């Protein structure tokens, strides 16, 4: 039985970890929830973002938070190019093709990074690596507190983009009725590219906020991808607020699961939730039907 005095610090830690998961899931919910693309390359692309931050930091001395100005735009361009140049072309409009193409992309990206970066686990050292914020008796690592607020801001920006801009309206129109969207003059391929690019740009943001408290190696994406899918289903397809909420819930469940069931069984709770949501609330907390 755990010490009750550590429940509050553990929940707070779960919330900050959950915010990091939410950041990864935000991009996925856009791509998976809105465009119905099951992007198996999401973890591999997160790894690309993390390497970008790593090299900008170690080669050019850029702070990971300064990389927010560089990495997300690069990741956006990469996502746009991948969708228009590879995924869209190879998919021929069929969902099962997209699934295989993204899986293939993941394998190619991971193996290329193994070749170029080797399998070393790499970390960056920042002046604030050991800085903590004391809150309700808990020492919260500063990078995770920043990531928590970063996730809130990113989710808010994405919501604004979808609700208030022409691009957001076009993406939503495309998600509902592809033919209709085409008939009213929306450039479907361009909007697909933009959506995928935005989803991958979210990974760029996640990478900048994640690396100060985590590491990068070619396999790093594996640890996040299943959780991100769970969050998308839990939060509701295509719902950014849902993804944020789902991420936070998963973070807390993982933390408390670890505390009460033992660390090695802590993740069971996550997947039990996944199954229960699919059975009892297939629309997720805030989304449309799965």
């Amino acid at each position, binding site marked *: 039985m*755990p*010490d009750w005095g550590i429940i509050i610090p553990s929940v707070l830690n779960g919330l900050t970890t959950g915010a990091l998961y939410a950041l990864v899931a935000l991009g996925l919910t856009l791509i998976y929830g809105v465009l119905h693309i099951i992007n198996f390359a999401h973890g591999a692309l997160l790894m690309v973002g993390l390497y970008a931050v790593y090299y900008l930091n170690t080669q050019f001395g850029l702070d990971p938070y300064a990389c927010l100005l560089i990495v997300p735009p690069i990741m956006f361009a990469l996502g746009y190019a991948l969708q228009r140049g590879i995924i869209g072309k190879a998919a021929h409009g069929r969902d099962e093709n997209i699934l295989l193409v993204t899986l293939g992309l993941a394998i190619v990206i991971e193996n290329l990074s193994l070749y170029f970066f080797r*399998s070393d686990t790499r970390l960056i050292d920042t002046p604030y690596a*050991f800085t*903590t914020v004391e809150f309700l008796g808990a020492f919260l*690592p500063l990078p995770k507190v920043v990531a928590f607020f970063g996730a809130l801001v990113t989710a808010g920006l994405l919501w604004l983009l979808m609700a208030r801009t022409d691009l957001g309206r076009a993406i939503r129109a495309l998600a509902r009725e592809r033919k209709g969207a085409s008939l009213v003059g929306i450039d479907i391929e361009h909007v697909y590219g933009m959506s995928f690019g935005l989803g991958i740009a979210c990974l760029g943001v996640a990478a900048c906020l994640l690396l100060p408290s985590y*590491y990068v190696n070619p396999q790093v994406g594996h640890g996040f991808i299943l959780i991100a899918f769970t969050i998308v289903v839990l939060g509701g397809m295509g719902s950014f607020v849902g993804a944020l909420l789902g991420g936070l819930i998963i973070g807390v469940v993982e933390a408390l699961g670890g505390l009460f069931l033992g*660390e090695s069984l802590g993740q069971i709770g996550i997947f039990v939730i996944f199954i229960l949501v699919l059975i009892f609330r297939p629309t997720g907390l805030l989304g449309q039907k799965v």
Partner: protein
Amino acid sequence: MTGNKTKGGFSRRDLLATGVAAAGVSAIGFPAVLRAAPAPVKIGLIHPVTGFIAFSGNQCRQGALMAIEDINNAGGIKSLGGAKLEGLLGDSQGKPDIGASEVDRLVEAGVNGIVAGYASSITLATSQEAAKSNTPHVVDVGVSDKIVTRGLKNTFRFGPGYGKIAKFAVDNLDTINKSAGSPAKTAMIVHEESLFGTGTAKLLSKELPAKGIEVIDVIKHANPTRDFTNIVLQIKAKKPDLIIPANYYNEYVLLARTIRQQKVEAKGIYSVLGGAASNYKFVKEFPEAAEQIMDCNHWFDPTSSLALARKKAAEAKGLYYTYEVFLAYNAVSFLADAIERAGSVDKGAVIAAMASSTWDKHGMPYGPTKMTDGQNEGAQPVNTQVLKGVIEVIFPKKFASADPVFPRTV
């Protein structure tokens, strides 16, 4: 382009001229040029070069390839006419079943011996699979004692097993603790969930109480574990005098960082086979988190010029000289020495040569090899401690480069 003259093949005159020339050359004595080079000796190298322990797997592979390169540069296997070693690479992806199927593939490809497989669970599978074809199998790292207690005649381990390591670790901890006035009375063990971590934790939990150190909790975690805050919060709540980690590199680094972040005030961090505690990479990148951590782990003999020369050569290749590198290097060299003495690649002869090995060119604090049921009896770990950013050997005294600092002062 060589022109059109040769297009139609050799003429009868060309053929005769070539034959005469060849006969002449052989008569004046260039037999080595014309005789076929001896068939290469094929060594299967199976490591987890992808997957959750890929860093260590790659380090092993690099160490093994360095050994092959050095042996070939020194003239190959002389008793086989200078036959070169050829490394056939396999990837277990960190999974025992894939490790076993890689053994099948490499046996099919005609390997004369196998060096594998880094993790204990993988090594159990690879050695068992290799035993089916009686293929000589040298364990590079795998520390579980089950590996050498199943009666497999083909399996040899050059390094120590965790039974010996745990006993060594506990005895030395007792010495360090007593000489500081026995400040450590309680300990918490944090270990990874596979065979290596679980087995080590079990042995330590059994041995420590006999030395007056109560194990107040044992925490098992998954690979990968993305966040150690929860575990460290539990450590903080229970306030053990000692924290004993037994896990792989990635998790160790996150754990050490979190211990520092959460301001845990233990008297010492004493790892047993810690993935990072005696790792140059970790110490270089995070001197602050690594400072004064003690470890009981595989280590080279710091007084051996051979070991230091190999370390220099590895570093010249851009490698960190971690235990994976020198253990895999020695596993290949040990196998090559057996083939050299057997004078043949006959599996039975190589196995017999390994069983009777007295090889001593390893640069390890072991003494000459002495195999009993496949285990090198002389193999032992050492105790290290990170002091002012340098990994110092603190035990055994014979190899020590510094005195232990305990309780920790940072």
